[in-house]
């Protein structure tokens, strides 16, 4: 069949949570793909050609045509490979809820979490507080709109779950590397639990970055950013 023979290539980066989301989706659907590691510090000609507007990863190439932006890629995957798991719910209102919360995580939460990495002292404390507030909103949202969510197998994983594991899966590594805790079983039990259950799935274990490697990366990255800020 045409689809089985046409090649799928993912251009990504081992440390990128956006890249991870696409890998998870491809693996969940059993789509064979070639992975190409890109170096954003030293952008390849091919990456620039594939994504001239943003020059970023991930980029999915299918039938020779590139698709950029992880959320757009995930929708493309779900609409092209209609086998389970379906990444979007059938019901259009639930689908809108998924879109809303994914957007909330991407735009409201992830950004402030990122600031924590390169800030210190007062500024960092403020960002941590803001991140916790926003994560609390997410917690309430999950409780309200997805109260019966039960994650036991691959079929239970959709776009929202993928976004959550990719964004928050490393929260323990963040705590170890930065001494900062944003998610915990007492204040954000729903979110904490979703993450634990997702991490039990084989597909997630396959894409997970080993804890030591991640802690090491975060510490070095933070040092580098702090030095840059100091000398600016």
């Amino acid at each position, binding site marked *: 069949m045409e689809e089985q023979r046409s090649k799928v290539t993912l251009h990504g980066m081992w440390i990128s949570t956006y890249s991870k989301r696409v890998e998870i989706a491809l693996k969940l659907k059993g789509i064979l793909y070639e992975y190409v590691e890109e170096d954003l510090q030293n952008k390849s000609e091919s990456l620039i050609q594939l994504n001239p*507007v943003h020059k970023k990863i991930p980029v999915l190439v299918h039938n020779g045509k590139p*698709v950029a932006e992880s*959320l*757009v890629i995930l929708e*493309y995957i779900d609409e092209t490979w209609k086998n389970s798991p379906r990444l979007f719910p059938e019901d*259009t209102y639930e*689908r809108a*809820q998924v879109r809303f919360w994914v*957007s909330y995580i991407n735009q409201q939460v992830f950004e402030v979490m990122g600031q924590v990495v390169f800030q210190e002292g007062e500024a960092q404390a403020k960002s941590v507080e803001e991140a916790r507030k926003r994560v609390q909103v997410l917690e309430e949202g999950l409780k309200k709109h997805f109260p019966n969510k039960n994650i036991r197998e691959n079929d239970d994983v959709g776009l929202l779950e993928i976004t959550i594991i990719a964004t928050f899966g490393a929260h323990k590594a963040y705590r170890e590397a930065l001494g900062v805790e944003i998610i915990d079983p007492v204040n954000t039990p729903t979110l904490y639990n979703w993450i634990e259950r997702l991490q039990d799935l084989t597909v997630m274990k396959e894409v997970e970055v080993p804890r030591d490697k991640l802690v090491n990366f975060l510490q070095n990255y933070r040092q580098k950013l702090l030095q840059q800020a100091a000398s600016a």
Partner: protein
Amino acid sequence: MNQDEQVKVLGLWGSPFSKRVEIVLKLKGIPYEYIEDVYGNKSPMLLKYNPIHKKVPVLVHNGRSIAESLVIVEYIEDTWKTSYMILPQDPYERAMARFWAKYVDEKVMVAMWKACWGPKSEREKETKEAYEGLKYLEKELGDKHFFGGETIGFVDIAADFIGYWLGIVQEASGVTIMTAEEFPNLQRWSKEFISNNFIKEVLPPKQKLATLLKAQFGSVTSD
């Protein structure tokens, strides 16, 4: 379930985000009740239906609310599968539409806004970004009538700010980024966009909008 039951839009007359929702409802022939929120004063209704962002637009359908204009637009497209569809059928074409809508929404609009009204120290940088963004859009549009091809689609709706508001914002702020000479395709497109019969109905009056913008943000000469 009667689809058309109880569709309400909570919006602001001058907001391009709000208008995106009205435009798609009009194009699809979906009747709705419009409720004006209050500028500078978040209404109890707004706080009830969008407690998280406390922003318009909010769509209420069958008693349930949805926020974020592009989320709402996709919801409307998913729920009312009438003859007028704003996204193409083909998954790759849909991906391209979503990519460009996102680009307009997250990059170009933000840069343009900051270039016109943002902190003075950043305006030069934002102007450059806005200009580059518009160049990409100019190229993407090319010879087509609309980003959606022959008919108005998802990207055109997302870019409503560029189609109508930008001209007024440029005049009100004194900052010019998009000129007819450098952006002939976008210029042509914007004329066609705003002359569409459905869109004409919902666009805010030019003078009223200019007055509002000047009042809210002042002009480029003030600090």
